[in-house]
C-alpha cells in the first residue's frame, strides 16, 4: 500500500513507532530545546510554550523531557485502564516523542523582537506590569501572525499526540477521546507543578536566574 502524505503529517505512527520513533523524536526535541535556548523560548508545559527569560541550556532540555514524559506517563496509565489489549510502553514513549515534532517551529517564533515588544506593551497597558514600551503596527501584525502559527502548531501537535495514543494503546471512539483529554489535563498539572516547584526562581524572579547560572 502506498503511504499517504496526509497520514505521514497527521498520523505517521501507522508507519513508525517504538525505538526509531523515540530516536527521531528525541533528536527533534533536542533541536527544539537548543533553538529555544537561543530564542529564550520555554516549552514549559505539555502543550504550551512561552517567550521568557534566558536560562542555561539544561533547563530547556529538562522542560522538554518533563513535558514529554508527564504526558507519556498519564497516557500509559489511561491506556492500561481503557485498552482491552496489551501494548508496549516503548511505542507510547516513542510516538509521543515524535508527536512533539511540530514544536520545533515554535522557538523560531521567539526570534522576532516584535512578539516580546507587544507582550510587554500588553502587560503594561492591561495589568500595569513592567515598563512602558511602544509597539508599531508591524509589531502587532507580526504578533498576531505568531499567535496564529502557534495555535496551528499546537493543534497539529495535539492531533499527533491523540493519534499516537490511539495507535500505541489500541483505543478508539469516545473512550479514547475522554481518556486522552483527562490524561492531557493531568499531565499538564503534573508538568506545571514540577516547573513551578523546581524552576520557580527562573519563572517568577529574574534575579533567581543567577542561582542557575552559577
Amino acid at each position, binding site marked *: 500500500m502506498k503511504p499517504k502524505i496526509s497520514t505521514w503529517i497527521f498520523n505517521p505512527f501507522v508507519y513508525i513507532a517504538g525505538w526509531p520513533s523515540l530516536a527521531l523524536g528525541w533528536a527533534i526535541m533536542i533541536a527544539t530545546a537548543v533553538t529555544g535556548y537561543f530564542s529564550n523560548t520555554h516549552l514549559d508545559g505539555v502543550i504550551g510554550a512561552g517567550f521568557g527569560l534566558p536560562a542555561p541550556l539544561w533547563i530547556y532540555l529538562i522542560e522538554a523531557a518533563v513535558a514529554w514524559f508527564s504526558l507519556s506517563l498519564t497516557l500509559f496509565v489511561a491506556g492500561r485502564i481503557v485498552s482491552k489489549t496489551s501494548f508496549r510502553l516503548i*511505542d507510547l514513549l516513542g510516538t509521543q516523542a515524535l508527536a512533539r515534532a511540530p514544536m520545533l517551529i515554535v522557538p523560531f517564533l521567539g526570534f522576532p523582537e516584535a512578539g516580546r515588544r507587544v507582550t510587554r506593551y500588553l502587560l503594561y497597558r492591561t495589568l500595569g506590569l513592567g515598563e512602558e514600551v511602544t509597539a508599531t503596527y508591524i509589531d502587532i501584525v507580526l504578533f498576531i501572525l505568531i499567535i496564529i502559527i502557534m495555535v496551528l502548531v499546537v493543534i497539529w501537535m495535539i492531533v499527533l499526540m491523540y493519534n499516537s495514543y490511539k495507535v500505541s494503546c489500541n483505543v478508539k471512539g469516545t473512550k479514547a477521546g475522554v481518556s486522552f483529554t483527562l490524561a492531557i489535563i493531568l499531565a499538564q498539572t503534573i508538568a506545571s507543578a514540577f516547573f513551578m516547584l523546581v524552576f520557580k526562581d527562573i519563572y517568577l524572579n529574574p534575579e533567581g536566574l543567577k542561582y542557575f547560572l552559577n
Partner: protein
Amino acid sequence: MNRNLPLHCPSCSQSLIVRTLQCVNCETMVNGHFDLPPLARLSLDDQQFIIEFVKKSGSLKEMSKSLGFSYPTVRNMLNDLIERVINAENQNSTTNN
C-alpha cells in the same frame, strides 16, 4: 479472474451456506447443508493477512517489515482480526443452532 466467495445473501444480507459441492474430476455432486468455516467467512484481505502471519511464524515484527506498517499498527490489525474471527465463529454456532 479472481472470483470472490459471496458470504452474504444479496437479497436479505443473511449469511450464506454451502448447499452443493462438486468433484472437479468426475463431476459427482454432493448436496447438503454445510456451514462455511470461520476463516472462509473473513474478507480476502483478512485471509491474506492470516496466511502471511502463519508464513512469518507468527512474528508481528516480520509482518510489520513486510507490510511497511509500524509494530503497533500491525498488532492492532491483528486484534481487529481476532475480533472478526470470534464473530465469525459465533455466527457459525448461531447457524448450527
